């Protein structure tokens, strides 16, 4: 397994005890109730993409309503609010969180740290099935009487559980809350695996500072999620009691349609604090894996070590930690104590510094690189553009007083779609083009991929960049139609039509992508074990796709960090992590 190169420091791999592997005995336990992280990863990914397609179709319908109000007769205000709620909730939690942590986390962590599997495979399997159950409950709310909840993805009380909100007094909100609770329990099982596998499952030689940034990103995001999701859990449980048992955690005295309700004394702001205490870290739970993955994509395809690796690691950890003390920047105009604004604006803008450093380091990795414009690299470049754009508009919204006119307008919608919608999803695409050969043994079709890339990147930019200006004009978010106003010029309507057409085109391109995924499974070019000539461990498996147990007889031993690209004096422009040996010029190079 280890190539002998004359160096004296080759260590027999047996020093690492092997984990007890669960061996599947039948087709069912191999492919359905599998405890193999790779199978679970594929299950997670397929489910997430499937439910994500539902959310995509919902976004089409909403965009059609915004551009051509009333064109779809079934899409009244009630449906519109149900659709925005489901679109948001699915995209943020059931697609992005599940795909990054459940999908990429499961596939990449054991392979990248040189483990045979996750440390608790049974809990890992349960995690997926609970996730699937959560998705099923969520989908069931579409068919429940009254339909899904239309409270907005933030589920703010009191309206979330009142009768003038779709699903508020029907099953919609109950199913939503139950689904979230199941999701969180399931995630906790998976999250324990991701975190503990990184902590305890690393192979010999794999120190923390030798881990690829992908693992750092997913690990930090997992730890954050483990600490942040309980806030959503608490909020969901308490709201469920308010809705079903008539308690008043979040419910003040309310007169609804002329009638005094039996609630009193509760605080809607309390819910907002709990929700955003989860909600803000959630942004980084999605962003940090993307940061990590894109670092590896850029480094591999520019054939150059990631610039400032240590700074990248520290930045990931600092961003993760800081993201727990910025939550109230979502609440500047919520009526909370206005003096909080000083604190939260300051912490929010401080986060911009490590984030900016990451951006600089990505661009500096390109500098003096040897850039292969492969599909993963193209997506990584597109990520930089969209992330910088979305991140910079975050400086508007984080700076408390600038947020006042912009909050709750389409500017906010454009901002968070750019920064946590488009940018991470571009990374997901890049990552799929990058790791598909490892997962299936075949390359994705290049022509379809190019078409998909250009439509997605340019289309998404053309959707969300102009949308900022719709918000700047003053159009509020969550309006099914703006109607007559004195301040919105008619030309905004034309812009809306343009955005909608772009949205339909970009959506259609995703169908091409799904087709490519299926088509290349059979007809893709054979990839070989390491088509990108990458250094990290997942490319050094004895089989492609990796077999059960990942590594054959012996675990790999790690001799170097994850970024030994273009080392001066080395025969190749990459040195795998499990290859021993030094090169004389390296000291001078470093």
């Amino acid at each position, binding site marked *: 397994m280890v190539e002998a190169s004359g160096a004296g420091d080759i260590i027999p791999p047996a020093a690492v005890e092997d984990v007890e592997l669960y061996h599947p005995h039948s087709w069912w336990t191999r492919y359905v109730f599998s405890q193999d992280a790779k199978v679970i990863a594929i299950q997670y990914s397929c489910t997430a993409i499937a439910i994500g397609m539902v959310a995509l179709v919902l976004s089409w319908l909403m965009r059609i309503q915004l551009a051509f109000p009333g064109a779809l007769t079934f899409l009244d205000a009630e449906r519109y609010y149900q659709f925005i709620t489901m679109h948001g909730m699915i995209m943020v939690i059931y697609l992005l969180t599940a795909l990054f942590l459940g999908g990429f986390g499961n596939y990449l962590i054991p392979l990248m740290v040189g483990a045979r599997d996750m440390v*608790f495979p049974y809990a890992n399997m349960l995690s997926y099935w609970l996730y699937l159950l959560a998705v099923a409950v969520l989908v069931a709310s579409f068919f429940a009487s009254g339909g899904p909840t239309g409270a907005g993805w933030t589920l703010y009380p009191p309206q979330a559980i009142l009768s003038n909100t779709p699903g508020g007094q029907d099953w919609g909100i109950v199913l939503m809350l139950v689904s979230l609770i199941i999701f969180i329990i399931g995630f906790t099982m998976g999250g*324990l695996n991701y975190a*503990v596998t990184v902590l*305890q499952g690393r192979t010999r030689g794999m120190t923390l500072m030798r881990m690829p940034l992908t693992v750092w990103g997913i690990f930090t995001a997992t730890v954050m999620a483990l*600490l942040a999701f*309980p806030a959503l859990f608490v909020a969901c449980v308490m709201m469920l009691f308010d809705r079903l048992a008539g308690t008043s955690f979040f419910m003040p005295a309310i007169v609804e349609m002329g009638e005094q309700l039996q609630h009193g004394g509760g605080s809607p702001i309390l819910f907002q604090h709990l929700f955003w205490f989860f909600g803000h870290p959630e942004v980084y739970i999605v962003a940090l894996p993307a940061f990590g993955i894109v670092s590896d994509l850029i480094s591999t395809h520019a054939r150059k070590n990631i610039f400032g690796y240590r700074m990248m690691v520290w930045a990931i950890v600092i961003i993760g930690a800081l993201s727990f003390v910025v939550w109230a920047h979502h609440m500047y105009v919520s009526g909370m104590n206005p003096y909080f604004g000083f604190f939260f604006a300051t912490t929010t803008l401080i986060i911009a510094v490590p984030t900016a450093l990451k951006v600089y380091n990505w661009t500096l990795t390109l500098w003096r690189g040897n850039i292969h414009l492969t599909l993963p690299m193209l997506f990584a470049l597109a990520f930089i553009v969209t992330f910088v754009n979305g991140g910079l508009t975050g400086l508007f919204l984080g700076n408390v007083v600038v947020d006042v006119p912009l909050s709750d307008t389409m500017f906010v919608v454009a901002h968070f779609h750019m920064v946590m919608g488009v940018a991470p999803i571009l990374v997901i695409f890049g990552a799929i083009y990058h790791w598909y050969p490892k997962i299936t043994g075949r390359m994705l079709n290049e022509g379809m991929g190019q078409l998909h890339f250009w439509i997605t990147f340019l289309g998404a930019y053309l959707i969300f960049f102009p949308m900022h200006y719709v918000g700047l004009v003053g159009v509020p978010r969550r309006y099914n139609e703006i109607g007559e106003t004195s301040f919105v010029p008619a030309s905004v309507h034309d812009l809306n039509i343009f955005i909608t057409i772009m949205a339909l085109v970009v959506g259609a391109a995703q169908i091409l992508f799904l087709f490519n995924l299926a088509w290349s499974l059979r007809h893709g070019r054979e990839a070989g074990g390491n088509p990108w000539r990458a250094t990290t461990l997942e490319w050094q498996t004895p089989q492609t796709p990796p077999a059960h147990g990942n590594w054959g007889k012996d675990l790999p031993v790690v001799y170097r960090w994850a970024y030994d690209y273009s080392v001066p004096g080395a025969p190749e422009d990459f040195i795998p992590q499990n290859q021993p040996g030094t090169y004389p010029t390296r000291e001078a190079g470093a």
Partner: protein
Amino acid sequence: MSAMLLFLCVIAAIALWWSAGQGLLSKPWLEVGIASGPRDAHDADRPKLPAQKVGLGVFLAVVGALFTLFISAYLMRVNTQDWWATPVPRLLYVNTAILFASSLCLHWAKVEAVRGRREQLRTAMLAGLMTALAFVTGQVFAWRQLVAAGYLLADDAATSFFYVITGMHGLHILGGMVALARAARLVRTEAIVTPRLRLSVELCATYWHFMLAVWLVLLALFAGWAGSFVAFCRQLIT
């Protein structure tokens, strides 16, 4: 949210202490070859912590966050005008004693597991299981007393919090009992105290102590001691 921020500070301190030994300041590109020194988690002279123990530690952090968030919500709500505290049923103090006894039983079980005495281990585990069951039953009786006294779930905020938080704690005890029962079954099926069994017992014991600590904090909160404690701390500072 101050309670939660305090909790996060503790977590951050632990993470910082741990990462201090992980060589996060090293320059990995200069270090080729098999890594050595304290930053290698698999160093031979440092016994490797079993993944289960680390897993339980992380899980307890999650559970801790959950209860801290409930407490945070409670503390944010406690300052509003329509708040009047629910009286703490006397029975709660008896339950506390039972839970304390349960924790002691688990500690005893741990000691017996280390000594490898299978029979005594079994007795200790059964005693732990029984006392835990007694605690949960006692909690249900405490609820019934409250209901009989006219404090209903939806009546006022303090009562709602009391039911929801004690219920959540009870669920966690029940979950622990499932794990303990599984470990107790291991005693029956295995002739000697295997390392696997010993590990299970140790994990259960840790969990029990943790849930006892959580319960003591919750009791202090409901009995109003937490308020006085915070006031006392404020006095110390000013």
